[in-house]
C-alpha cells in the first residue's frame, strides 16, 4: 500500500544569507537606476544614497560592522522628516521620488538575506517608472531599456547561485530576456484595452523649471524665453499650412497693467462665444509639450473647445488641469473673424486703466493723440507710423531701462524686443482712450518638410496687442510688425540673424539639416504613437487595420491569440536549436533490442551497462543468447572498431536485431 506524500516544495529557499558578490551586484544595480535621477533629487538624499551603498559595500568586505537594527528606526524617521521638511509633503512626484530613494537606500543597510536583495531589485524595477514622471522622451526610453537589462542581469545573478559573476554571460542572458520580451510587449501595448484615466484624483502639482510663457509680462521676460531652442508644440494641419504672417498662436491674454508689468485679469469662463467668423475653419492637431501651466495654444482665433478646457471672455483657451504631460488635441480656428463687439463695460473700463504716476511722457503723448484724432484707427496708424518711420530698432539685447520703462524706451533708447513695443503701444492706446490689452503666445513656426508639420519653439514666443474699436470689436495690432516686418513675414530667425545663432534646423546645420528634420520627425511620431496612444488612438488604429476588432472582447481575444502564436514560435525555434544530438544508428538498434527484451519481462537493472546485461543473460532466461552475443560483438566493432559506421555492418546488425524473436 503506497502512501503518497507530496509536499509542495515552494518554500522560502531564499532565507539564506546573501552571497558577497550578489550584494555588490545589487548595489551597482541601484546606483545605475538612480543615477539619472540625481538632478531631480536634493543633495542630502544623494549623500544618503552614496553613504548607505558605501557602507554596505564596506560591510561586505568586512571593513565595517553591520549597523545595529535599533539605529535603522531613527534613520528611517530622519529620512521621512527630511523629505517632509524639503517639500512640505511626502506625496507628489518630487517628494515621492525622494522618499522612495531614501527608503530604498536605507533598506540596503539591513539587507542580509537573499530575499532582501530580491526585494531591492524589484524596487529598482519600480524606480524606472519614476523617470517617466519627469520625461517620456526617446532618450528616456533608451535609458529604460538599459536599466531593464542591468536590473534583469542582477536578478539573474541572484538566481544563478554561482559565486563567480561572469559579466559578459550575464548581460547576454538578460539582454536575450529583454529582447524576447519586446514582441510580447508590443502586442500588449497595442491591444490591451485602454481605459480613460484618471482613476483617482491627481494632485495639481506646480512643477518649476519648465520654460514657457508666463502669466505676466515685463520687459525682458519674453526675450529670455526666445533664447531657448526647446520645442513648445508641434502642429499637423489637415490642409495647407496658412501663411507665416497669420500664424499667431494665442496664449495668455494680459489686460491688467501696474505701470511696470502686464498680468492676466481674473479668468472668467464664457458660455457663448461673441464671435462673427468666416465659415472656413482651419483644422489642425496640436501636440503640446508640457508647460507646467494651464493654457492651451491655438491659432487666432480658436472656435472650438477640447475636453477639460474652457474659453475665457478674452478668448483664451484654458485647460482645467495643469499640463504636466504631453497633450495632444484637435483644434480648429477661424483666421478671419470679428469678436468682442458686445464687450462689457466693466471689461472695457479695465482695459483702459493705467497708473498715471509712472511714464508721464507716454501718457502725455497718448492724451495728445486723442485730441488730434477722432477715429481710433487713425491713432493706431499714427503710432505704427511712428514706429515704422522713426529710428526704432528690433533687438534681443535692449539697453537696461530705469523706473519709467516706457518713457525711456519710447523717447530714449528706442531699442527693444516685442514686449517693449507691445507694452508701450498698449499703454499709448489706453492713454489715448482706446481699450487695449496684450496677447502673448507664439508667432510663426518652422516647417518640417520630412513630416509635413510645423515646429513651434520657445524662440517663436511673441507678444502683440489687441485694441477695441467700436463696431469692429477687438482688433489685433502687432507693433513689432511695424518695426521689423521680417519678424512676422519670415520669422524670428530672419529678424535677429545678426544677434543670435539660428534656431532653425535648416540654418543651424545645413549639412545635417535633413537628418535633423528626420530626428524631429521621429520625436513627433514618438509623441503621436507612443505618448498619445490612448483609447481613441487605439480605436483609430484598430479600425484602420480593418480586421473588425472594435470592442474589448475582440481585443483581448486577438491579444491572447497573438501571444500564444509568438510564444509557440519562440518555443519551436529554441526546441529546434537546442535539440539533443541524434544517437548513432547502432545505439538506436541496441535500444530497439532492449525494448524487445523488456516485452518479455527481461529488464536491465538500474545503472547496469547494456552490453554487460546482454552478456549475462543465460539461456534459461532467453534462448537466443548466442545471437545476443553476436549483436554485442558487432555493436562493439561498429562503435569502436576501425571500419566505423560502415553501412554493411549496420544493415547486418539491423537484420540480426530483427531476427530476435520474442
Amino acid at each position, binding site marked *: 500500500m503506497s502512501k503518497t506524500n507530496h509536499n*509542495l*516544495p515552494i518554500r522560502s529557499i531564499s532565507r539564506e544569507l546573501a552571497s558577497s558578490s550578489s550584494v555588490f551586484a545589487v548595489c551597482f544595480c541601484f546606483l545605475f537606476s538612480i543615477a539619472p535621477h540625481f538632478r531631480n533629487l536634493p543633495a542630502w538624499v544623494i549623500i544618503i544614497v552614496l553613504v548607505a551603498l558605501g557602507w554596505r559595500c564596506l560591510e561586505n568586505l568586512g571593513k565595517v560592522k553591520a549597523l545595529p537594527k535599533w539605529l535603522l528606526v531613527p534613520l528611517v524617521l530622519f529620512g521621512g522628516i527630511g523629505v517632509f521638511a524639503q517639500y512640505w509633503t511626502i506625496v507628489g512626484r518630487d517628494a515621492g521620488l525622494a522618499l522612495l530613494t531614501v527608503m530604498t537606500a536605507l533598506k540596503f543597510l539591513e539587507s542580509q538575506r537573499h530575499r532582501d536583495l530580491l526585494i531591492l531589485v524589484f524596487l529598482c524595477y519600480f524606480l524606472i517608472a519614476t523617470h*517617466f514622471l519627469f520625461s517620456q522622451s526617446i532618450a528616456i526610453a533608451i535609458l529604460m531599456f538599459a536599466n531593464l537589462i542591468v536590473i534583469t542581469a542582477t536578478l539573474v545573478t541572484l*538566481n544563478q547561485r554561482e559565486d563567480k559573476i561572469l559579466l559578459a554571460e550575464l548581460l547576454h542572458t538578460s539582454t536575450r530576456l529583454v529582447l524576447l520580451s519586446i514582441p510580447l510587449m508590443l502586442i*500588449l501595448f497595442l491591444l490591451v484595452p485602454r481605459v*480613460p484615466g484618471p482613476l483617482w484624483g491627481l494632485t495639481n502639482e506646480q512643477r518649476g523649471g519648465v520654460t514657457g510663457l508666463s502669466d505676466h509680462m515685463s520687459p525682458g521676460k519674453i526675450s529670455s524665453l526666445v533664447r531657448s531652442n526647446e520645442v513648445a508644440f508641434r502642429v499637423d494641419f489637415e490642409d495647407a499650412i496658412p501663411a507665416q504672417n497669420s500664424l499667431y498662436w494665442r496664449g495668455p491674454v494680459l489686460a491688467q497693467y501696474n505701470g511696470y508689468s502686464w498680468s492676466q485679469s481674473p479668468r472668467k469662463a464664457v458660455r457663448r462665444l461673441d464671435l462673427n467668423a468666416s465659415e472656413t475653419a482651419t483644422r489642425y492637431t496640436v501636440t503640446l509639450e508640457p508647460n507646467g501651466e494651464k493654457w492651451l495654444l491655438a491659432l487666432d482665433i480658436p472656435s472650438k473647445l477640447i475636453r477639460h478646457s474652457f474659453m475665457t471672455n478674452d478668448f483664451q483657451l484654458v485647460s482645467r488641469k495643469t499640463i504636466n504631460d504631453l497633450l495632444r488635441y484637435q483644434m480648429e480656428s477661424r483666421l478671419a473673424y470679428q469678436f468682442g463687439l458686445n464687450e462689457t463695460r466693466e471689461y472695457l473700463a479695465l482695459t483702459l486703466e493705467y497708473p498715471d504716476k509712472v511714464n508721464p511722457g507716454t501718457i502725455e503723448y497718448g492724451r495728445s493723440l486723442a485730441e488730434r484724432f477722432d477715429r481710433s484707427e487713425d491713432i493706431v496708424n499714427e503710432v505704427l507710423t511712428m514706429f515704422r518711420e522713426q529710428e526704432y530698432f528690433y533687438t534681443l539685447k535692449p539697453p537696461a531701462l530705469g523706473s519709467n520703462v516706457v518713457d525711456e524706451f519710447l523717447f530714449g533708447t528706442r531699442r527693444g524686443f516685442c514686449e517693449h513695443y507691445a507694452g508701450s503701444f498698449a499703454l499709448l492706446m489706453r492713454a489715448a482712450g482706446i481699450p487695449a490689452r496684450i496677447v502673448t503666445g507664439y508667432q510663426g513656426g518652422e516647417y518640417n518638410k520630412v513630416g509635413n508639420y510645423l515646429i513651434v519653439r520657445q524662440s517663436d514666443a511673441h507678444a502683440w496687442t489687441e485694441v477695441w474699436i467700436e463696431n469692429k470689436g477687438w482688433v489685433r495690432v502687432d507693433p513689432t510688425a511695424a518695426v521689423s516686418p521680417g519678424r512676422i513675414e519670415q520669422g524670428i530667425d530672419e529678424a535677429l540673424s545678426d544677434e543670435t545663432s539660428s534656431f532653425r534646423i535648416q540654418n543651424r546645420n545645413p549639412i545635417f539639416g535633413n537628418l535633423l528634420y528626420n530626428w524631429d520627425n521621429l520625436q513627433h511620431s514618438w509623441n503621436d504613437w507612443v505618448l498619445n496612444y490612448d483609447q481613441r488612438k487605439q480605436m483609430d488604429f484598430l479600425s484602420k487595420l480593418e480586421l473588425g476588432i472594435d470592442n474589448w472582447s475582440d481585443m483581448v481575444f486577438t491579444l491572447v491569440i497573438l501571444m500564444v502564436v509568438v510564444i509557440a514560435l519562440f518555443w519551436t525555434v*529554441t526546441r529546434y536549436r537546442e535539440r539533443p544530438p541524434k544517437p548513432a544508428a547502432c545505439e538506436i538498434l541496441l535500444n530497439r533490442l532492449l525494448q524487445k527484451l523488456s516485452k518479455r519481462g527481461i529488464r536491465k537493472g538500474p545503472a547496469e551497462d547494456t552490453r554487460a546485461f546482454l552478456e549475462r543473460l543465460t539461456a534459461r532466461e532467453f534462448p537466443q543468447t548466442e545471437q545476443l552475443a553476436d549483436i554485442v560483438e558487432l555493436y562493439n566493432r561498429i562503435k569502436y572498431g576501425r571500419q566505423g559506421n560502415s553501412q554493411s555492418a549496420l544493415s547486418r546488425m539491423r537484420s540480426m536485431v530483427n531476427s530476435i524473436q520474442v
Partner: protein
Amino acid sequence: MLSAALPRPIRRYFDTWFDAHNPSSRDAILLHNRRLYILPTRFGYLFGIMLLMLFFAAINYQNSMAFVLTFMLASLAIISLWHTHKNLRNITVGLQIPRPVFCGEFCELKFKVSHAYNSRRFAIGIQYDGAAPVYLKLEPESGTTAKLKIPTAHRGQFKPMGITVFTRYPTGLFHAWGWLKFDLPILIYPRPTANVKLQQSMVAQYDGQISTSTIEGDDFAGLREHRLGESLRHVSWKAYAQGKGLLTKTFQGQARPTLWIDWQLLGAGSLEDKLSFMTALVLAAEKEEQKYGLRLPGTTIGQSFGSAHKHACLQTLAVFRQSDLNQEFTLEQD
C-alpha cells in the same frame, strides 16, 4: 501536504492522478514535460502585485511609457516562465542505491544529473523535503553528480520520496520542479545504544552454552584430563612431575565463543530500545570478532561472522516489525 486540506474523494482522485503521472522508477528519471510543474514563487506574486500597481498608475496618469514598462515587465515574466521551464526540461536524474546508515546519521544520496541538449542549465537544485538544497550547473550535453545529505529519524527500509529537482533560474519569479520517486531501497539501521560492551557476564546471560574454557588464552583457568590428540605443548608437565598424570592447562579470556543475540533474553523495554540494544550488541560482537547469531521472534540468523553477516543482521533488525511504526516520515514505506 498539498492534498491534506481537500475532501477525501478529491484527494484520492488527486493522489491517483499524481501517482499515474509520476510513476516511481528503478532507472534514471527523465523529466519530460508531463513530469514538470511550475508555479510562481512568493517573489513572483510580489512581482505581480507590483505590475498591477504600475498598471493602475499608468492608467491614472495616462503615462504611455509607464504602460510600456508595465507590459515589458509582464512580458519578461512570461518569457522567464518559459525559460525556467526550459531550464529544467529533459534533464535525467538517476540515484545510486545509498549505503545503509544508522538512524540518526545522515544518509548520503548521490544523484547523477545529465542532459543531452546543447544548452546550459543553471542553478538546478535538488531538495529533500524542504531541507537545504544542493545546486548544480550543467554544461551542454554533459552530466554531473550531486550529493544530498538527508537526516534520518526512523529505522527501516524506505523508498526515497519527497525528493524534488527544481529550478528558479533565470529570474526567480517561477519555481519549476519535478518529483523524483525512485523505486530503490534506502536502508536505515536502528540507532545503536551507546556504550554497550560485550561483557562476559552479559554474554553469559544471553548464552548459556558459552564455552569459557579453551586451551588457548591468557588467563590460567585450571587443569583437566588430557584428551587424545591434544598437543603435548599444553600438557602441564609440572603436574605430571608431581605424579598427577597427564593434565591439560586451560585458559580463559582469549576464547572466541559463539553467542546468540536473543530477543527473548532482553526482558522488558520498548521495541525500539530492544532493537537499538541488539544493534549495539551486533556491532560490539563484530568488533570483538566473535561469532554471533540473531534470534528474533519469527526470524533466526545463524551464527556467523563478517561484514555480510553483520549487514544481514542489521537489515533484519531494521525492518523488524517496521509496519508497527507510526511514522511521519516522508521516505515512503517499502
